[in-house]
């Protein structure tokens, strides 16, 4: 689960990391009150989860009240359906740093990255100037040791006062990584201000989905999703992504669904949505189809090849879903795996024409989406 900037900063602040003064507003009428506390000039930051907010005009600097009003109006009426804006004090920046902690799967360690080239795209820097990124492996049994934080901080060549502040910040950041079962914590940029303070200019905190059972502080709310379908899928724990093509995918197995997505593209078709109801969700065919039907598409393609996610159970679920929801578009099925013979009987009895070969099913769906009849 990816947290919005303002929530990540709230967590950082609790851990002792300085953040700029900021107020969240959900309506233009709240702006005046916010500006009483956060003085002009300030920065208006859209609370959306996508990256590259600056370039997309979703983060803007304003130096008059009029400009603030214009921008707040524009952002609240933006097509991205922005629900929250962070009104944040402008900081006098002397320098920008990059710092993050993630995991290193091969060595089985945590990995801290830090660079004096803050504010830039770290993935680009990793390619162009890898020597400008300092890496420190962290043994998760002991956590980030003070000597490590100290070694990293001193190697940056900052003055004594800033170095000490940075050491504290690095240890605090690790405490957040650990406490919140993070797959990523990142501050980019981390500001060094003209007053020699270290302040988090941005905040990224991604909590591992497998740890959500013990990380119940943050709840999923509809505001965070682009559509009702995405929100419903998230509540059910069904992986779902909406696109704008013709074929709705309702497949089981992450790898298989991704492969069917590729095959549709190879065959010249387009995907309306990715939906994967395998694993623990294999009995949720009705819910899965309900979500698929909320997305505009010309055909729904169901491909499975399950083991524990039994073919017969999925076939029954699909027939049940069709009877209950009466879909307004054709359904192509390719259901294989445990008890697949039973699945075929069930699907045929319901008037479907089950296909047994993935590529054939994909071709049929692409043809139907293009207005063909088979």
């Amino acid at each position, binding site marked *: 689960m990816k947290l919005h900037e303002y929530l990540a900063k709230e967590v950082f602040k609790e851990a002792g990391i300085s953040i700029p003064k900021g107020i969240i507003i959900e309506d233009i009428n709240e702006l005046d009150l916010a500006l009483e506390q956060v003085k002009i000039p300030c920065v208006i930051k859209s609370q959306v989860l996508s990256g590259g907010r600056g370039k997309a005009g979703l983060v803007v600097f304003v130096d008059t009240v009029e400009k603030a009003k214009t921008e707040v109006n524009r952002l609240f009426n933006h097509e991205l359906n922005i629900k929250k804006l962070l009104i944040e004090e402008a900081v006098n920046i002397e320098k920008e740093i990059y710092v993050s902690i993630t995991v290193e799967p091969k060595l089985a360690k945590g990995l801290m990255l830090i660079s004096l080239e803050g504010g830039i795209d770290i993935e680009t820097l990793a390619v162009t100037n890898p020597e400008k990124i300092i890496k420190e492996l962290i043994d998760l049994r002991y956590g980030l040791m003070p000597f490590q934080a100290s070694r990293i901080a001193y190697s940056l060549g900052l003055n004594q006062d800033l170095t000490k502040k940075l050491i504290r910040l690095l240890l605090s950041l690790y405490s957040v990584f650990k406490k919140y079962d993070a797959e990523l914590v990142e501050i980019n940029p981390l500001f060094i201000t003209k007053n020699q303070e270290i302040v988090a200019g941005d905040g990224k905190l991604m909590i591992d989905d*497998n*740890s959500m059972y013990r990380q119940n502080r943050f709840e999923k709310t509809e505001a965070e999703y682009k559509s009702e379908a995405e929100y419903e899928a998230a509540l059910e724990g069904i992986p779902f*992504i909406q696109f704008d093509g013709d074929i709705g995918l309702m497949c089981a197995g992450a790898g298989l669904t991704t*492969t069917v997505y*590729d095959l549709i593209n*190879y065959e010249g078709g387009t995907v309306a949505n990715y939906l994967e109801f395998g694993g623990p969700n294999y009995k949720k065919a009705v819910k899965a189809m309900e979500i698929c039907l909320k997305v505009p598409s010309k055909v729904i393609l169901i491909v499975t090849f399950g083991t524990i996610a039994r073919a017969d159970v999925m076939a029954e679920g699909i027939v049940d879903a069709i009877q209950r929801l009466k879909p307004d578009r054709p359904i192509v099925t390719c259901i294989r795996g445990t008890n697949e013979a039973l699945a075929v009987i069930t699907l045929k009895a319901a008037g479907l024409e089950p296909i047994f070969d993935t590529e054939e099913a994909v071709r049929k769906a692409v043809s139907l989406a293009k207005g063909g009849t088979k």
Partner: protein
Amino acid sequence: MSIFIDRSTRVCIQGITGKEGSFWAKHMIELGTDVVCGVTPGKALQSVENVPVYNSVKEACKNHQIDASMLFVPPKLTMDAVMEALDAGIKKIVTIADGIPLHETILIRQAALEHKAMVVGGNTSGVISPELAMMGSFPYWIKRVYKKGNIGVMTRSGSLTNEVTAMIVEAGYGVSTLIGVGGDPVPGTRFAEFLPLYQEDDETDAVVIIGELGGTMEEEVAMEIVKGKFTKPLVAFLGGKTAPKGQKMGHAGAIITGGKGSVEDKIKALEAANALVAERPRMVGKLLEKLNVLKK
């Protein structure tokens, strides 16, 4: 022959009295797996499928020779169960649990490396040598997928593995040993770490890897080939070639991060190592033929 598991491997099942554990214990035995004992704390007086059950792995070890442990344990309890097996000196461990917390997967792999043990999984169906033995939850009775042969298979997926393996069998081949390393971002054992076993196995003539976007496991395989440590023919199928960048699609491990992990990068690395990459599942069998891999 096969790798990791065959009829002579003596297997303990942790969590044998649970619903999943007892169901798959029965099937493991039916296929021919030598399940010697089970462990569930507090259930020592029971037996499942005539297999004796103990309160701890240590206690089981006092009464049996154990070569490998199979875990049917929920994700929250998996790290503890893995540590128990490692503590008892077991060097081959398979865990199918889907949903192990990320930080615990790190600790599991770290412990496995320190014990010089192999932990397979989580988030996998396990390991199977068709028509011989398995540790995990495979529908081995689907003969158009689980047929014995000379192709080693390694995979990050479940359903996709059935799809691709069916195509290998359709082409007239069979499988020596299939290993599901799992779909988590931090699998206990990585693709490249199994290559020496396949290299040494006389009855594996070629290896197929079923990968996907994200991570660097496929690149590590390419590196082993380049270094000359793996010399048998290798074919790869990789899902997610057309996946939109930055989008989490597929397994948790399947995301392009740090500028690494795109399918294009993986194809480049593998082809530079003279491995062949199939664009579609059906092509895998055809590429094995192209590499003159015998059907036996």
